[in-house]
């Protein structure tokens, strides 16, 4: 095992971790603020990938189509998320845990079939522009040139969210709501409206992540079922509602997957669940979460 191939493995783990981060960031945000574990998150991520395909397909003759379709996918998914929140999720904030889980689970089922109805069962492929078709070499390690964009986009989202939470008024409200919703409400801030927009933002991120995912391989039905569980693991490892935790959690899961595949390919997922279970047992609130939430 030489350094270069280890580095290749590291880069592939980093890419996978970035994608997980993009999916899990919204999941973590939504759980942190509203205490809703959104089973439908990955279905919306997949929908984002399909939206991205549709936008790209519509604008194919333009050179910017490939790049523009990614944020557009986020916006379209965000719109779906907004409707979801206003029509359904709003009604279940005060309901019991199992009712919330069942509702988001049901939404996931409905969305998956909606995707099947809308886009059909054939795989969709987005053709990449010329500039990102060849691999680049970093210290001799080959890397899909699109992955550089993926990693940069992940970093941009991480920095953007961090900036939003740290320096904007709405970010402060969101952070306060993670800590104590009652207190924020008591200060006269309209909690329902904050919830709607946090949910929409979370789903926007899921759709954006789907848009980023779309050109990596072909877009297929059922891609979402594996990633939702991994995103749950990321959020559990990092801690619900913690942006830094989600980032660290995704990199841990991405790198563990990537390196386990080298010497024990069957054990990659098993190891992820062992780590997740261990964290839950020792620190249920995750590496960077706050222990006061129950």
């Amino acid at each position, binding site marked *: 095992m030489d350094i270069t191939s280890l580095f290749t493995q590291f880069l592939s783990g980093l890419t996978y971790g970035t994608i997980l981060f993009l999916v899990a960031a919204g999941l973590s945000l939504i759980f942190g603020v509203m205490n809703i574990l959104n089973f439908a998150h990955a279905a919306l991520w997949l929908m984002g990938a399909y939206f991205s395909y549709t936008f790209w397909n519509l604008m194919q003759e333009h050179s910017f189509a490939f790049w523009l379709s990614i944020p557009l996918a986020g916006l379209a998914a965000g719109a779906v998320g907004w409707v979801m929140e206003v029509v359904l999720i709003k009604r279940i904030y005060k309901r*019991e845990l199992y009712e919330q889980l069942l509702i988001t689970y049901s939404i996931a089922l409905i969305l998956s079939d909606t995707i099947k109805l809308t886009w059909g069962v054939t795989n969709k492929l987005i053709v990449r522009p010329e500039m990102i078709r060849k691999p680049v070499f970093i210290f001799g390690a080959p890397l899909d040139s699109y992955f550089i964009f993926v990693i940069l986009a992940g970093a941009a989202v991480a920095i953007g969210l961090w900036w939003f939470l740290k320096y904007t008024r709405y970010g402060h409200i969101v952070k306060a709501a993670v800590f104590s919703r009652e207190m924020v409400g008591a200060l006269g801030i309209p909690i329902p409206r904050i919830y709607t927009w946090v949910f929409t933002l979370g789903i926007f991120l899921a759709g954006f992540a789907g848009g980023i995912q779309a050109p990596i391989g072909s877009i297929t039905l059922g891609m979402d079922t594996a990633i939702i569980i991994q995103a*749950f693991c990321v959020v559990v490892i990092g801690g619900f509602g913690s942006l830094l935790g989600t980032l660290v959690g995704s990199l841990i899961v991405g790198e563990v997957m990537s390196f386990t595949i080298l010497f024990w390919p069957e*054990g990659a997922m098993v190891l992820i669940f062992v780590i997740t279970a261990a964290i839950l047992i020792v620190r249920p609130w995750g590496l960077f979460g706050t222990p006061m939430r*129950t």
Partner: protein
Amino acid sequence: MKSKFLFPAALFLLAVVLPYIVPEFWVHVLTEILIMGLFAASFNMIFGYMGQLTFGHAAYYGVGAYTTGLLMVKANVPLLVCLPLSMLSAGLCAAVLGYFCVKLRGIYFAILTMAFGQLVYYIIFQWYSFTGGDNGLQGIVPPAFLGKAANPYYFFTLIIVTLGMIALWKISESPFGYTMRAIRDNAERTEFIGINVQRYMHLNFIIAAMFAGLAGALWGPFNRSVAPDLCSWQHSGMPVFMAVMGGPFNFLGPLVGSAIYTLLMAFVTSFTEYWPMVSGIVIIVVVLVMPGGLLGMLEDKFPFLRRKDDSEKGTEG
């Protein structure tokens, strides 16, 4: 006969008569209702009676199914011997995994059970040499005395499921069952009156897993095969749907829920492939419109149906 046994007795009579009336396809559906009903009732020992949501109960169902499948295919062990062994293996798994789960409550309990469920799923999925991996195990045939027709295996399932349900009923009506309700309604106070809450929860978790294992053991010979999907988190969602549809605060609620869900699925899938969407809409309607499930709603509408000894939820959650 006391009136509280009227409904179960009527259900049992119906279950005995129906296979002679309906076509063979529906006998298969009835068998499935019974197996899933026992699975959902075992899940409800944790959910309705202990007040914790497990999203990994299919793991124990799957362990039971694989125990019977492996013993029958690889060692030719008779089915009747496999059944208790499946309960044992599922119970042993739950003894280890449940030990950690009962340390947590609420959402963390749900996620940890799910993580363990996925762990079991991936172990079975990846262990090709032993479990057949994603190919599953084929050629699990019911014993010769049950023949090839649908009816004999149905009646065999009916007997086992009835015995299982009676055992679960006895447990839920025992002092142990009432301790579970106390833990559900207020774990802190239960601890204060000198009950080791964690140990009781652990024991209940093992019992629930054993009966899930029994239900799983019945599945293999019924379906002639087992697959890793039996352990997946999607499959863990099924007893949740069933319990919530039928009513988690009635002992027979999960069984009734299994009947509704399975019949609906058999009916809907006969003309459309979009069963997930239909089931999703049904579940949303159930959760929003009748939170107590079908039996809960009937009891609200017709108070004379209400029984004192039911697992009615206390005022403190």
